[in-house]
């Protein structure tokens, strides 16, 4: 038996796509850049070559119509996986996403399913700026009929991509650009469970930390620092934000009685707000102290190098809060980022 393999998040997506395209001959994969030399940061590598340009193809800059076209294919049982190199571009397709994709199954009383997966890539850093770095999961998650997933590691990226594609409902698959190069173990095979279960990444009795996508990288750093300082956290990686694994969160908070939620959406109406309101409403009594949100400020993301410094929330904010509530001096110097703050790692270069 081969050992567990280690691959990057981008490679995991590529594997998930290839697996799905092989499995379902009617599955289509399109989007700007899907068939070009850079192949969407390597995620669609060699797919057009292998599956031909009828199933895997580049599209005109027509985000709205192409989403409707995806829906048309999907209701005739050609599932579609469509890619946006930046989440921001999907705003052009909001009519199709909200008025059609999300509603067709319900509205026609179950007579059509809409198996589309929209891959939305969230930009960050290197001057992506106000219109190329939005993390708008809240907009999608508010809409009944959509599912929204946000994987945080290669294994989940592959597993959840396959789940999303096989799910008969429209799924918004949000992938953070800064995860693409992260490496991780990958399971040999997946029992393709349904979307909606969170992962408990670390266990502890002192505090519950909930996060998703790239914020889980930050949460993991924080949780490890805390552990080395004698504070033990339950770290829940949501995986799916809609449906939300309320049970996992409620159960953990019942135990820890403290809650921090990380989300890189704008603070007002963030997933973090929603989770805090759920916990408050459903089990008010389990909370010992007021819960904490760690979210993006209610500002667009600026472009300039200095301006993005300290703009994004991260592990430091978790530590600071814990320092406070546990009244403890926590050392974490060795974990802080010594490189440029606007790239995920030193090899990462702009411009995109």
């Amino acid at each position, binding site marked *: 038996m081969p050992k567990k393999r280690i691959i990057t998040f981008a490679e995991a997506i590529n594997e998930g796509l290839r697996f799905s395209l092989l499995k379902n001959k*009617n599955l*289509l994969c399109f989007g700007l850049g899907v068939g070009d030399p850079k192949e969407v940061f390597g995620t669609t590598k060699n797919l057009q070559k292998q599956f031909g340009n*009828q*199933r895997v193809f580049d*599209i*005109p800059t*027509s985000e*709205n*119509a*192409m*989403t*409707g*076209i*995806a*829906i*048309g*294919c*999907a*209701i*005739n*049982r*050609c599932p579609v996986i469509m890619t946006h190199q930046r989440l921001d571009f999907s705003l052009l397709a909001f*009519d*199709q996403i909200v*008025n*059609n994709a999300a509603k*067709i*199954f*319900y*509205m*026609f*009383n*179950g*007579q*059509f*399913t809409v198996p589309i997966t929209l891959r939305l890539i969230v930009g960050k850093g290197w001057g992506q700026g106000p219109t190329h770095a939005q993390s708008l999961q809240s907009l999608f998650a508010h809409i*009944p*009929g959509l*599912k929204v997933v946000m994987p945080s590691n290669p294994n989940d990226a592959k597993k959840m991509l396959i789940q999303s594609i096989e799910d*008969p*409902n429209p799924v918004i698959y949000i992938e953070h650009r800064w995860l693409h190069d992260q490496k991780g173990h990958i399971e040999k095979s997946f029992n393709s469970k349904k979307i909606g279960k969170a992962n408990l990444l670390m266990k502890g009795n002192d505090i519950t930390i909930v996060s998703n996508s790239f914020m889980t990288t930050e949460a993991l750093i924080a949780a490890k620092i805390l552990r080395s300082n004698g504070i033990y956290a339950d770290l829940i990686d949501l995986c799916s934000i809609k449906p939300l694994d309320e049970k996992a969160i409620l159960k953990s908070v019942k135990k820890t009685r403290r809650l921090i939620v990380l989300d890189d959406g704008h603070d007002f109406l963030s997933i973090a707000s929603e989770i805090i309101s759920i916990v408050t409403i459903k089990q008010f009594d389990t909370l010992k102290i007021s819960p904490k949100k760690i979210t993006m400020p209610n500002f667009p993301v600026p472009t300039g190098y200095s301006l993005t410094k300290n703009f994004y929330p991260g592990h430091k904010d978790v530590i600071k809060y814990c320092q406070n509530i546990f009244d403890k001096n926590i050392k974490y110097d060795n974990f802080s980022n010594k490189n440029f703050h606007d790239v995920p790692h030193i090899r990462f270069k702009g411009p995109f």
Partner: protein
Amino acid sequence: MIITGLFHKMKKISKKDELDLYYSILRIRRIEEKIAKEYINWKIRCPVHLSIGQEAIGAPLKKLFKSYKDEVVSGHRAHSHYLGKGGDLKKFVCELYGKKNGSSGGKAGSMHLTDKKSGFILSSAIVGNSIPIGVGLAYSKRIKKEKGIVLIFFGDAAVETGVFFESLNFAILKKLQVIFICENNFYSVYSNMKYRQPQNRKISEMVKGIGIKTIKSNGNDPIKVFETYCKAKDYVKRFKKPIFLEFETFRHYEHCGFLKDDHLNYRKKSEIDYWLKNDCLRKLHTKVNKKKLIFFEKKINKEIETAFNIAKKSNFPRNSENKKKLYA
């Protein structure tokens, strides 16, 4: 007509087909009139956009695009396309009444019709937004090697939506077997084309410039409409390319609702008179003899009465249904 010579010689329409065509038009007309008549009882509690005046465009669908593999999508004014394609009448009326046995169990109403069995896939209440869905259906047919053509219906206002152009571009690019059909009744709600599109706009000519064959025809002349569809079908199958049809026509009733609204004076009297004189049913009496006509009316009337009676008597869905079937 803009294109000639491109098509196979067409046979003249047979007498039988002509009778069927008039039957189909008359049937749609009477159903729509019945809706208008019943509406005042306030039991049909959803917006309706009646097709009265425009029936000739929906009427021939079942005859010419018989297979359920020939698929139709449409917009808010979809009754005539639904009925013309052979959509189930009872389910339709029940849907208007919000009943359990409506085509979508009452969840969708007049603006969101469907009857897959007949090939009427769906209609949508948002102007323009079913156009790409039709194009997607056509693309999926290629992938699955399915037979059939997709017909996409929309009004003159849809030509102002960006998604129309985006969809057209893709259909032409990929040479999809789609018939785009614009029912140009010159108005969007109360707004004449001149307030919305450039002076002297000829929709079909404009669209032709985008790179697709177009035919413009009189949408109120049943025979011309029929022949235009024949040509279009032939073109699409032979050249494996999409085509665009513009049918000029006129709506008799208000935009949305069951009344006439000519007292509002948004359309000129001469305009109204012209179109009423050219109603698609004006030649009914010369084309269908009296006996036949009485037979037609009776048959239609019976079908309608049955459908409406069923609809009225049918049960409402339980209101707990409103929280079912959100996810598959």
